[in-house]
């Protein structure tokens, strides 16, 4: 187990290193002159050249990359060109805000999605199952940004229950804080919930017809226990893999949802950076996103291993 973990951590490191080269290289092609952006429209040519010299923009690209990567390892992400402040604190705030959104979404997706899936598997072929199946089929086809628009029309404009945009910190009261969080979270989870529910349903149905569930029933184990301990535990394995993939989808969704609800998170920061051509900020955001995604995949792997005793000791079985 320990060796396996070490191997995976090393793998993450390699991925992040490769990605950092890719991100740095691609963002270097960006149009727009950094020195020009800092100095503004009225700078003379000699001023621009001097600043470029000072920033090291004339160095070969691998020297520039190495400088950037070294900073990265020391959590020094450079300064934002537009906001003219160090990136690290801005980024940490944004990550915190996005984490609240992401964690409550994933939690909700796992809970409600799995519950819906189990419910329709147990009521297979009955009205409840049909309703859930139909609802999830339609829900899957609605992109996040359209959910946002629909939710805003209904709950902000028509019913007036929630504020349209923004974010307040928890210190201003739980109720106000939650009010700003509910709509973005709902917009984020709808599609994923449908996805998880459909998957759980089909793997539950498969497991419910298996020999060991039959054996458990024949043994006289109460039905509730059969479902919880024998069926669900095994049916959840594919669901967990999908949850990890869904983290990637969720990050895409977060970009869209944060932009629409003006929620001050990582996604909106990234879009802001792209629109403003703020190269250091774009690089920092992208590298953070890569790390978060890699770690999420690792966590899913560990959880999978933990729940599935057959591969609990990792490489020894599969070689």
């Amino acid at each position, binding site marked *: 187990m320990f060796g396996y973990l070490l191997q995976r951590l090393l793998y993450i490191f390699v991925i992040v290193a490769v990605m950092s080269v890719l991100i740095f290289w691609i963002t270097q092609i960006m*149009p727009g002159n950094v020195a020009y952006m800092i100095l503004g429209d009225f700078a003379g040519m000699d001023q621009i050249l001097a600043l470029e010299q000072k920033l090291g923009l004339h160095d070969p690209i691998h020297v520039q990359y190495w400088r950037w990567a070294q900073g990265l390892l020391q959590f020094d992400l450079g300064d934002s060109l537009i906001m003219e402040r160090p990136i690290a604190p801005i980024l940490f705030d944004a990550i915190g805000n996005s984490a609240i959104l992401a964690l409550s979404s994933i939690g909700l997706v796992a809970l409600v999605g799995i519950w819906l899936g189990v419910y329709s598997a147990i009521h297979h072929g009955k009205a409840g199952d049909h309703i859930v199946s139909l609802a999830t089929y339609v829900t899957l086809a609605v*992109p996040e*940004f359209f959910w946002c628009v*629909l939710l805003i029309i209904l709950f902000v404009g028509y019913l007036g229950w929630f504020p349209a945009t923004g974010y307040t910190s928890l210190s201003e009261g739980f109720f106000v804080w939650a009010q700003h969080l509910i709509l973005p979270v709902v917009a984020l989870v709808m599609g994923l919930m449908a996805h998880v529910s459909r998957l759980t349903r089909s793997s539950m149905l498969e497991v419910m017809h298996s020999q060991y569930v039959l054996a458990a029933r024949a043994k006289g184990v109460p039905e509730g226990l059969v479902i919880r301990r024998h069926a669900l535990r095994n049916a959840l394995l594919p669901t967990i893999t999908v949850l990890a993939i869904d983290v990637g989808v969720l990050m*895409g969704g977060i970009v869209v949802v944060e932009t*629409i609800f003006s929620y001050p998170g990582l996604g909106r920061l990234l879009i802001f950076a792209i629109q403003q051509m703020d190269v250091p900020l774009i690089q920092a955001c992208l590298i953070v*996103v890569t790390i978060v*995604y890699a770690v999420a995949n690792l966590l899913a792997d560990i959880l999978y291993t933990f729940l599935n005793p057959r591969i609990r000791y990792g490489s020894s079985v599969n070689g």
Partner: protein
Amino acid sequence: MALPSMASAPRRRPLPASLVWGAGIFAFVLFIAVAGPFLAPFDYDQMNILKRMQAPSAVHWFGTDEFGRDVFSRVLYGARLSIAMGIGATMISLAIGVPLGLIAGYYRGWPEEAIMRGVDVLISIPPIMLGLLILAVTTPSVWKSALAVGVIYVPIMVRLTRSVCLEVMGEEFVEAAKARGERGWYILFSEILPNAWPPIIVETALRVTFAIMLGAALSFLGLGVQPPASDWGLMIAEARPFIHQAPWIAVAPGIALVITVIAINLLGDGLREILDPRMKRDRL
């Protein structure tokens, strides 16, 4: 399951309902995408300030937008770019992913190692990020967002094609071709590929829906289609400031998008029932 009796063997099973419905609706949407501008009652960019933000009526079925343009005509017009982006992106991922997957599966050794490690890196990038990365550094346009979305789905296509290829390679006709001394390329494209299509086609149908949704999302963020051209994603984005006074401007293209995606999903499910009945989704 009853044993298959010889008498009923030649009778063909009826096509799955999902396939019929999905194909029907999708054909209709495709027709609109092609013929939209000719069907539309108004020009998509014909402004009329006197008729700003009118509610749906007999003349303007989906109402008018903030410039008095007919929303129905614009939805018909927008179908073209939305569908083109979805299908174009998927074609790109097929064109790159399938040959790479075949090569990885057939030649093994270092080509497989190189391709699959590259896929590992690509797949560890969250889907939308690659698109953002490409679009961040260049000026946005339709074909670039199609390319961005297409590249995102290359790893999935490679993995799928490789695993199907490995399966087909165990078959006898491949052994026979090898015994005949056929060349590698011939075996790959004339023996293996024709037999590897079914799961790839099913996956392709699924990818088209994802690509349409992701493409629309990129347009929505201003990183895809640029005005004055328009697709459904951009239409919804442009309608956002007015969604309280004139919700129909945003809702109409959204519903068109949802119907299209549902149709392709149905089509994909139907195709899977016919082509890949064992539903080997775990191959990815």
